[in-house]
């Protein structure tokens, strides 16, 4: 691995004054970025800052309204990802572009522009093995992509670009599906290749730790404009985050009231669950959440968290184990959810917690529409009272909607989140289950939603917080457990653990 026979042919790329307008919004405004050959450049910014739009302009998904892209100093015209590929620019997307039913080898061979009409697998496999030997990390060639872990898929995506001889790699948050150690391994190796002038890397990220550890240059985008840049090795994290979020104060750890030993409210005993193909995705998972505490479950996505939330929401059957609420057996059905005052905010609430084509008012009434006071004596619903209640909730929870009668799918992500929170938190809450509550939200909404969760905890609710964002867990949780490959570690008090230890557990060690 020390010797790589790849010739030093890294590409330099620069954008000059790129502007992209979507309707009334300037998604990019005069953006110029300089990425010299052989550098490892970070593109920083909050969600919605324009990072993805910029790289999509470079890749030819969008035509920029103004500005140009220079490759090794010469202007190039790129109208499609195919042309970008032909120029040597390759991108790893956040969603995977591998075909699940094909093996790794089949995916690599078919990615070539001219795959042979009849494939001689013996010869191809030999060629691929030789290629893998030259590569800094490897993936089993004969395995079906559907059976690879998310981290392995990400590695295979990167290998695919190198196999196609792309010398300018754009990585869109490549480490979001990797364990910290996997991420370090891959980034170290890519950095090594960049240092040897074999490739140039442009990485979209919002993890300061990675940017500090692996990148040399960085550019910060905010609301479509470049708000700063420099040398990632010398700039401080505070400087970078100020460029990212402007002059707003950085969040403090949420205020909390401490109390004595909590009473167990929600208990999971040896819970097991399977996916559609019968593979076990949760194995003998046990946990206890007490009144007035937040139990945080950390982990890289795709390790069974989604299945866990589905089990607790009644969307997925358990194949073993049992649930207890307040010491009594509990089935996630409407009657039990009401009796034990269990509420939840699943991830992707538009898909998992709302009916997109129904109005905001109707969606807000899902938990109470058939009960007094919203329903009348014989269970007759009252649209007027449903609307009146939602008007009150919309005001209290600051949901931005044109009217209670707007379809909920017309709301922005943050407002859908607030609408669902309003519905779930408006009554007495004993147990609250939240999954990735702040994913994809802007800074102000994040603070607000975390404050609401903290407020419920302080009022005595048992909160189970499942999140891929370790910072969020460290900010909110009283105790932390880590999920890896469907199993859960014992919970640790947040004071007695460290980021490094959690990271190690996330990798299953």
């Amino acid at each position: 691995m020390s010797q790589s026979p790849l010739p030093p042919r890294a590409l330099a790329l620069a954008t000059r004054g790129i502007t992209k307008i979507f309707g009334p919004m300037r998604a990019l405004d005069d953006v110029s970025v300089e990425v010299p050959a052989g550098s490892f450049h970070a593109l920083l910014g909050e969600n919605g800052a324009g990072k993805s739009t910029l790289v999509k302009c470079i890749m030819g998904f969008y035509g920029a309204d103004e500005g140009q892209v220079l490759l090794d100093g010469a202007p190039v015209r790129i109208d499609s990802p195919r042309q970008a590929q032909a120029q040597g620019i390759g991108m790893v997307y956040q969603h995977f572009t591998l075909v699940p039913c094909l093996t790794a080898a089949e995916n690599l061979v078919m990615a070539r522009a001219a795959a042979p009409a009849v494939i001689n697998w013996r010869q191809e496999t030999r060629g691929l093995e030789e290629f893998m030997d030259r590569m800094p990390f490897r993936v089993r060639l004969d395995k079906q992509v559907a059976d690879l872990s998310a981290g392995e898929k990400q590695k295979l995506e990167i290998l695919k670009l190198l196999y196609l001889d792309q010398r300018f790699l754009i990585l869109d948050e490549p480490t979001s599906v990797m364990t910290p150690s996997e991420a370090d391994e891959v980034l170290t190796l890519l950095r090594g290749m960049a240092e040897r002038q074999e490739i140039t890397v442009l990485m979209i990220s919002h993890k300061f730790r990675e940017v500090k550890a692996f990148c040399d240059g960085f550019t910060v985008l905010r609301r479509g404009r470049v708000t700063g840049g420099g040398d990632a090795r010398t700039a401080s994290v505070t400087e970078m985050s100020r460029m990212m979020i402007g002059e707003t104060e950085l969040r403090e750890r949420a205020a909390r009231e401490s109390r004595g030993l909590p009473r167990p409210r929600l208990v999971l005993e040896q819970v097991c669950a399977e996916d559609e193909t019968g593979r076990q995705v949760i194995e003998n998972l046990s946990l206890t959440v007490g009144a007035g505490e937040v139990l945080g479950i950390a982990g890289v996505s795709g390790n069974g968290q989604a299945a866990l939330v589905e089990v607790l929401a009644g969307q997925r059957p358990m194949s073993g184990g049992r649930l207890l609420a307040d010491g009594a057996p509990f089935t996630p059905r409407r009657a039990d959810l009401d009796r034990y005052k269990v509420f939840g905010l699943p991830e992707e609430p538009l898909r998992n917690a709302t009916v997109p084509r129904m109005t905001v008012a109707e969606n807000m009434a899902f938990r109470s529409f058939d009960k007094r006071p919203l329903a009348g004596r014989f269970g007759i619903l009252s649209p007027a009272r449903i609307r009146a209640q939602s008007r009150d909730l919309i005001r209290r929870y600051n949901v931005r909607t044109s009217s209670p009668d707007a379809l909920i799918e017309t709301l922005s992500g943050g407002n859908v989140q607030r609408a669902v929170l309003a519905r779930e938190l408006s009554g007495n809450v004993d147990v609250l289950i939240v999954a990735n509550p702040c994913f994809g939200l802007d800074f102000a909404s994040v603070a607000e939603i975390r404050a609401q969760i903290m407020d419920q905890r302080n009022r005595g609710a048992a909160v189970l917080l499942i999140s891929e964002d370790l910072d969020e867990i460290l900010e909110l949780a009283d105790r932390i457990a880590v999920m890896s490959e469907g199993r859960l570690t014992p919970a640790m008090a947040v004071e007695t653990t460290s980021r490094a230890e959690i990271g190690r557990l996330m990798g299953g060690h």
Partner: protein
Amino acid sequence: MSQSDLMIVLYAMIGGAIRVSTPFLFVALGECLTEKSGRINLGLEGTLILGAMVGYAVSYNSGSPWLGVLAAGGGGIVMGAAHGWICKLPKVNDIAVGLAFMSLGTGLAFFFGKPYIQPSAPRLQSLPLGGWSQNPQVQQALSVNPLFFVGILLAIALWWGLRNTRAGLTVRMVGDSAASARAMGVNINMVRLLATAAGGFLAGVGGAFLSLSYPGSWSEGLSSGQGLMAVALVIFARWNPLRCVLAALLFGAAGALGPSLQSIGISYGYHFFNAAPYILTLGIMVASARSKSAAKEAPRELSIVK
């Protein structure tokens, strides 16, 4: 039932399995290819009947049954390509279009087939492979139509091609992840159109077997739902062409159950035994809906899987 009666039933079932399975096999291979590309063509029932009628008519008019087989396949290509073309239009559901094509194919066949119900067309000749035996039942059971062997060779070729050729891998890509295939510059609508047309060709050939070999005449009740059962068969075979052969033989044997029992004089429950393939279909649908490995091997773009 005596020992010899049992042998007679057994021979009749084997012979029946080979004869009855051939159209199942062709339709199933066609459907397998189409579904591998991510589309379902329920219209193959109509294609099968149209193929039977076209094959019979061309054989009658030209005097060459093999020309009839080719013409039936040609008719199937037209039907399949039309299905594929309509399905690429936005917001068109392939299952609904398939049902429409089922009726269309049947209707066309009945309309143009009326004059061919009476006349007798030249049939496909079977290969007498039972000459080594003195037993007339064995001779009859082993008088096999060459199309049966063509079908088996096709199944092997399809199985090999889906793993070892660019075209095969492209079909699987399109059927499993249209987004990835599109990102690689594959024209997914064209791939699906071609896969559906090729599937139509095979179903048409299967139809020609019905009218030109076994049962060997053209009538309106010829197919009795075999084209639809073949769709169930593909699910049972988990989209593997080689397993399609085994599944087709199984369906064929089930279909031969009634006639072979009748041949030794058991007419009790004749209609019930004739219904065996349909009962088998139902059982297979129930079993495969519960099968987790079938769910794993299903092409992810299929509208019934999504």
